[in-house]
């Protein structure tokens, strides 16, 4: 509030106490705090939910196939139930907000043209794979063979958090896919880099098949997720229960709460009997029904693993390995960046001692600017007359360390070159390995990392 400026906008002349100065400034109107309306949908539990389900036809009409008629495709039009807005208590506010939208019932054509009065029930959209265009396009995009049914692909998209019944969700498929991927990637890395230290091997496996990596692959495949796993969502969407914003999960939850069960996968709750074998009481059922969510990355990773399992089951083991090569090992990983040596010079020295080489020696190969602000030294690590590795650095010690690291990487990143390609153990389990295929050529077995 400036001086006597009481009312609204306009120029005001203001006189300061120093009479010689005359300020003319634009006086802005006094800012009154606006009356804030707290909307119902801003409260916790009532956040705005985007409408779930198919956004293509806006839910006016649903073209479905009769599950009962065999052979001929009988598609009839049926009005979708009450639009495609979200269902469930959390979305009740969204429903209330939408009452101003034009009522959709007026556009629905009466579909019971045959004259039958009883409404024929159909499968829920989230469990009817043949009605989903997204699912078919995903199947085609992945170039899956016709032997891989759409129903399996639909099952791969359903996470256990969305559907507790293991016959409908992807828990067993993703378990098989996980074991399959682990086996394939381990044998691939051991065949390609036999001398990798175990820590680096684990890091490389993590880089290829960990949940974040599989999440990227799933995203590249164009898998979209349903906001909420209700019955009306499209069968081609990834269905999983989301975590609440900020809710910890997995290792983070273990660190925050000390709850060890967060580190293990969730136990299946499909029975209606508790541990003693008695039927569950209402309180026990209610407690168990509170299903924990899963991060989107892990749900997508589970889907990717399930697809690998599906390929293995429906196509063949060799086809599964081909799929693995196309999607996993085609990705580039710079294994040399995964190393972390603590005392590289000592490590190299012990390596040379174990292998019977001459003890390693660092020799300055060239240098420039020793007394300047930016010196460069190039040091070579020698074993006798043979140079094992080279390193550059701004100081002699740095260059010496880098030379030792380079020598060690030269040892550990040895990759055998075999005529016809390095063989893999899983090839012998595939069909056609014995009839016309070549005999197994043994893979180089390393003696182990140097223990410093």
């Amino acid at each position, binding site marked *: 509030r400036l001086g006597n400026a009481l009312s609204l906008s306009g120029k005001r002349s203001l006189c300061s106490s120093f009479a010689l100065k005359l300020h003319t400034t634009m006086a802005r109107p006094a800012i009154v705090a606006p009356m804030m309306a707290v909307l119902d949908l801003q409260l916790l539990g009532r956040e705005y939910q985007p409408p779930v389900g198919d956004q293509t036809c806006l839910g006016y009409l649903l073209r479905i196939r009769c599950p009962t008629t065999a052979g001929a495709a009988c598609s009839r039009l049926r009005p979708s*139930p009450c639009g495609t807005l979200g269902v469930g208590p959390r979305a009740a506010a969204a429903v209330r907000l939408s009452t101003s939208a034009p009522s959709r019932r007026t556009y629905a054509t009466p579909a019971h043209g045959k004259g039958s009065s009883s409404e024929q029930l159909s499968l829920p959209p989230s469990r009817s794979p043949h009605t989903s265009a997204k699912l078919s396009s995903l199947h085609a995009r992945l170039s899956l063979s016709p032997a891989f049914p759409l129903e399996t692909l639909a099952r791969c998209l359903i996470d256990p958090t969305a559907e507790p019944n293991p016959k*409908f969700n992807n828990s067993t498929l993703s378990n098989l896919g996980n074991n399959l991927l682990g086996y394939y990637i381990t044998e691939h890395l051991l065949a390609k880099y036999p001398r990798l230290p175990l820590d680096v091997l684990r890091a490389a496996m993590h880089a290829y098949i960990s949940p974040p990596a599989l999440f990227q692959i799933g995203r590249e495949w164009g898998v979209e997720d349903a906001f909420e796993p209700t019955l009306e969502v499209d069968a081609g969407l990834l269905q999983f229960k989301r975590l609440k914003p900020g809710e910890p999960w997995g290792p983070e939850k273990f660190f925050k709460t000390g709850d060890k069960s967060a580190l293990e996968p969730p136990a299946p709750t499909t029975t*209606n009997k508790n541990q003693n074998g008695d039927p569950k009481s209402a309180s026990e059922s209610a407690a168990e029904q509170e299903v924990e969510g899963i991060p989107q990355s892990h749900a997508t990773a589970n889907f990717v693993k399930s697809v690998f399992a599906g390929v293995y089951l429906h196509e063949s083991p060799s086809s599964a390995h081909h799929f693995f090569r196309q999607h996993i090992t085609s990705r580039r990983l710079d294994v040399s960046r995964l190393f972390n040596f603590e005392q590289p010079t000592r490590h190299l020295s012990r390596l040379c001692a174990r292998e019977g080489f001459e*003890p390693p020696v660092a020799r300055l190969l060239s240098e420039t600017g020793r007394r300047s602000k930016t010196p460069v030294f190039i040091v070579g690590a020698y074993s*006798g007359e*043979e140079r094992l590795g080279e390193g550059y650095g701004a100081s002699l*010690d740095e260059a*010496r360390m880098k030379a030792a690291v380079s020598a060690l990487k030269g*040892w550990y990143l040895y990759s055998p070159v075999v005529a016809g390609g390095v063989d893999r153990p899983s090839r012998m389990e595939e069909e056609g390995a014995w009839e016309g295929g070549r005999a197994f050529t043994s893979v180089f077995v390393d003696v*182990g990392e140097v223990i410093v």
Partner: protein
Amino acid sequence: MALGPSLIRPVRSSCIRCLQPPLWQKASTQSVSRTFHQSSHTNSSEAAVAEEQRPTVSYAFPRTKVYEYTRPQPRAPVKHRETAQEFKVNDNQAVLDEMYGKLLGPQGVNILTPELRWQAVTHASFDHGRQPYNNKLAFLGRRILIFHANLHILNQTQFPSATAQTSPKSEPSATISSDTATYLAPTPFQHPDYKNLDAATYETVGEYKNGDALAKFAKAAGLHHVMRWKPMNPGNLVQSGIDTVVVDCVYAIIGAIALSRGGFEAKKFVTRLLEQRKLSA
């Protein structure tokens, strides 16, 4: 690294130890059998014949004492600290082969080369990792075991626990309903390729990861006395983790077979393990 002879100016290292007489002075007088870039390890069958004539494996150059260079006299006339007990391990090829015969069957002794046979039963703690040890073989072998356990359950014709757990309390209802509509209840999709997929859950496959049955199997073959390792406390082997090490050796044998003979041979051994487990369970 030590200061070595060099015609170019030597690097002055900041480490004082470099000024000590080099520990491998004696070693450098021996002829260096191979240079860095030659392959130092072959698993071919031609080498196996030559290997079989050697009684024991000596991979690194032989070291009789821990240190070549020792102090000329002890500091104190009387030792007032307990010396570490030396833990004796097997170094007899015949004993090793007998164990492999019990584990893999009479035809199974020569599946692995003698070098691999030793490597698979050598733990990293033995001789501070100077001899070939089995950690990566065990890593691969464990993966193979879990994978084949999964396939084993998958291919079983009947798995009793599968159907009992997943049946609801009453017959499945014909319809399910959401808040807005009622639908036909979906039925699980069946396909011959699925086989016994519903029984192959994380828990049922995880039962095969349990090391107790494997340790028992190994004990029957006598692996406990054949493997080469160094316990933390020779007086109490269980506390030192003998069961963990033994299970690692079993995994390593699986991995060694897989890498040298292929997945099919490894599968035969793993199936034998899984069958034994079923009998003991």
